[in-house]
């Protein structure tokens, strides 16, 4: 998977799960302030990413530091790199 494909899969999965408008999903968009996610969505976000990329991340401390869509992109890309 190329980096662009990974990012597309992340964005499309999150858009579907959280009924997000793709036009709002800029890399710098804050998940909570700009995209309207909240504490209830954090668990679902982890499940979505685990399902899309077939890895386990729910115990990862780095998840707590995620604030923007770009944070998710970089987090997932680094996980994929670790696994490869």
């Amino acid at each position, binding site marked *: 998977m190329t980096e662009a494909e990974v990012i597309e899969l992340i964005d499309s999965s999150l858009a579907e*799960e*959280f*009924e997000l*408008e793709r036009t709002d999903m800029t890399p710098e968009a804050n998940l909570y302030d700009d995209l309207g996610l909240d504490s*209830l969505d954090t*668990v*679902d976000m982890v499940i979505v990413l685990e399902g899309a990329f077939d890895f386990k991340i729910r115990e990862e401390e780095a998840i707590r530091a995620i604030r923007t869509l770009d944070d998710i992109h970089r987090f997932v890309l680094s996980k994929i790199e670790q696994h490869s």
Partner: protein
Amino acid sequence: MGMKVVTETQNKPVAESTASIAIIILMNLWAYPILILWTLFGILVFPLLFVLGRLFLRWSADRLTRWFIWLYGRGWFLLMSPFVRFDREQMAVIKTETPHLFVVNHFSFFDTFCMALLPVHNIIFAVRSWPFRMLWYGSFMRLARYLDVEGERWEDVLDSCKIAFAANGSVLFFPEGHRSRDGRLQRFYSGGFKIAIAAGIPVIPLCINGTDRLLPPGRKLMRPCRICLKALEPIDTGNFGEKDGHLRLRKLVKSRMASSLAEMRGEVE
């Protein structure tokens, strides 16, 4: 993004007449004090009913508490009846003593009270953390084993639901998570739909209309209104077991609720 369900007040911004202002004042002079008195009465009488219920009905403590909460809601209907008309539709689709997962739209603080319009009382509400912090309701909610979907782990919520279903109880979610502030159906959270699929329990969508007229978020004064709770046909979740099946189920439920709400509000073109 959200489906448009315009409120009556948004649709028809009618100036209040002197008579209707007087009725609103009268209603609020009645409704708030009587709600406080009714709640105090409930808190005082609960221990007695609880003991009698344990002795004669032999129900578990949590089921008794849920029954008591349902009775509290029923009493509130009676007290509000001079100003509010309560109706319900299609309740025959709900089979008593059969577990269901209810999902209902959310307009007002009083939506939870209106769930006493349902013909079943053994319902566990799945709510956020803040209602548990209400001094006068929190202990009852904990005793009724209501679910704190914000504070508990997902696995624990799922386990609690499965235990409730096994005992022929039902669970109720507000899939929007918050009260709508513009009359539109908001984004739906997935949790309830995932639980229904995982437990193999049918979903019954409920549509409530009128509570946004009674007391929408951000307002203090109640207004006379007609409140209607309508149950839609149960949806079997057995066909949604595929990956991301909860998304398909969620969309189907939301679409049916949006259509029904539009019809209830006279917005079908």
